[in-house]
């Protein structure tokens, strides 16, 4: 079975950070914005929008097939779940050693120093689709079955290669 994955049409990303907010809210206790910002331990987004050369890139865990972070985890808190196509993080085993942060080649795992738990996209497992997808006002975040992207010319993202929607 093909896995659903997050893709980003960076030409459409306006850098509004709505995905960041939606992500933080989705992972808060209350799951509502107005309450989430008042929680004792603040929920933090697992996605960050970074800017590079006139484009904005939402950065979050890609759930690599050969995840270096899983190798690096000295607490066996990370497991690659083949069925779901994702790196599963067992927070109860995590000791906050930041080895995963140290090795993630995308800088997509960020430390939450307060909770000592690294922040990583969990594809909103408890929801029908990731919250960031719903939150994106321009449809720049795509949630769809895995596709092979055409080789990009370095320094230039391929044009006209938006994968077909489900």
């Amino acid at each position: 079975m093909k896995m659903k994955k997050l893709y980003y049409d960076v030409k459409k990303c306006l850098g509004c950070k709505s995905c960041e907010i939606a992500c933080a809210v989705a992972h808060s206790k209350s799951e509502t914005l107005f309450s989430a910002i008042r929680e004792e331990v603040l929920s933090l987004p697992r996605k960050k929008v970074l800017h590079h050369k006139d484009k904005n890139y939402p950065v979050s865990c890609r759930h690599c097939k050969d995840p270096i972070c899983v190798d690096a985890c000295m607490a066996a808190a990370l497991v690659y779940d083949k069925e779901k196509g994702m790196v599963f993080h067992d927070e109860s085993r995590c000791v906050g050693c930041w080895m995963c942060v140290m090795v993630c080649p995308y800088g997509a795992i960020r430390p939450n120093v307060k909770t000592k738990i690294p922040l990583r996209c969990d594809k909103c497992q408890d929801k029908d689709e990731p919250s960031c997808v719903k939150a994106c006002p321009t449809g720049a975040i795509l949630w769809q079955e895995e596709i092979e992207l055409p080789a990009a010319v370095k320094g230039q993202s391929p044009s006209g290669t938006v994968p077909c929607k489900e």
Partner: protein
Amino acid sequence: MSDSKQKSIDLATQEILKKAQAENIKTAWDRLESQEPQCGFGQLGLCCTVCDMGPCRIDPFGEGASVGVCGANADTIAARNLVRKVAVGASAHSDHGRDVAHTLSLLSEGHTHDYGISDIEKLKDLAQEFGIDINKTKEEITKALSKKLLEEFGRQEGELVFLKRAPKKRQAIWKKLNIAPRGIDREIVELLHTTTMGVDNDYKNLVNTGLRCALSDGWGGSMVATDLQDVILGAPVPIRGKVNLGVLKENYVNIVVHGHEPILSEMAVKASKDPELIKLAKGVGAEGINLAGICCTANEVLMRHGIPVAGNFLQQELAIITGAVEVMIVDVQCIMPALAEVATCFHTKLITTNPKARFPGVNHIEFKPENAYEVAKQIIKSGIENFTKRNKERVNIPKQEMDLVAGFTKEIIFQILGGKYRATYKPLNEAIISGRLRGLAGVVGCNNPKQTHDYFHTTLVKELIKNDVLVLQTGCSAIACAKHGLLIPEAAKEYAGRGLQEICEAVGIPPVLHLGSCVDNSRILTAASYIIKEGGLGEDLSDIPAAGCAPEWMSEKAITIGFYFVASGVYTVFGASPFATLGSKNLTDYLTKDLESIVGGRFEFCAEPMQMAKIMIEHIDKKRQALKLKPVMYQ
């Protein structure tokens, strides 16, 4: 489009929403859906677009930026954003007031003959307040008064004259806090100035400046509008009318007036009764001309002429979607840009009339007091011509229409409670003192598709009157309750608590009183001042067992009204969604907690109608206790 029942509790609205869906016409509810989820930074007030170093955003989760490029923090940014809205809301009401004052000036100079002085008593009362010798001729008084009133807008020093209507203690508080407005325009300009980059960075000071600006609306611009409209167009008296989309008539030329300023719609009322035009209408196969209103323009012509109300804010598009509207005449404020698009789906002609409010591609017939009646006739004539273009197969007028009584003013409350010849607030005060009446609530404001249409207004008001709270209403809130049968005397028996029922039955009033349009919120302020003057309920407006609220608010004007209510000492609760200030805890605490000890009133946000009723009643009871009043007669 999801369930229409979740969108509105009003059956007529539900019916037309289904029609819209079937015909693939988008309404505000659909557009809200396509806006969701709405921007979190915006909702929290943490996005600043004041200068071009931005736009800047503060991270509400404390991880990213805590200040903008200029160094403004969440408190400053949220406060600036909020009080800018206060300035805009004040400008809308006050500019409306200025136009009425300008009309008075024109008629006093003989430049318009379509208007006159309808209420000479009120003219003289006003003249006296402004120190004008009332023994002069009507023309001289009018001239002098219009000059004085226009001067209130441009006044630079001192205080607005209307502030003297407030109890002495209230005036002293304003003076002490330096929030007594000096001039209507000045306060708006000054407030805007303080919010530009690098001026006021103290959220408390920004709020205080906002309070002063709002007072220049409530006790200034809005009050001018209300009182002068009464002088020129006549003070309303209780009048029966009908409300909801069912007031549109299938075999008539339907003309809908929508917006806020009654100066033009007054002429439309006159023209709709013009025998020559009625004859013309019959000539095209109609039975006559049917004028109906939407929003506050509707409230104005309802209050004075009993013209039926087609609906409130969220029904403006729906009126057109009935397929039975020949012309919709709009002036200013709350006119959805979407109307232009919706109108193109039907034969309906949308006509803008005010040079301040134009739509690209929409027919504009400019209205001036000097040519008012001619313009009104011309527009109605074009409606008659348009009647033949109506596609009868697409007409669907819902059956729902409801009776209501409107036309209550501060003077009328005097008269009906005290009797015409011994006008007094004494019976009202005594009813509260004795506990027959628990207290008063002002329930005002808009509709907001974030909130099930009319649900909050009606649920809240029913609960309030059930607890013997007399409800005073204006604007779209009044229309909401009217549609659900709360504005007829018979409603007292069905919904009101025993004490309120006794009063309503004794004087024959509904348990919910319709005071007019949203500028007529100023009527609530003056009525409250009379209550204090009458005695027995404290020395300041904040002593009265009363609360205010805007359950389904959406407009900047609602924020301004909230600000002048709070600055006048009223506990004021907002529904729908809270102000966009939650991103700043300091500011939100200041508004919802600290302000009470400073101005006597404070804000509260509440998203559930029964809960809102509960906290309003608790506040009323708290005030009753502070006054050491007897317990409420019927618990």
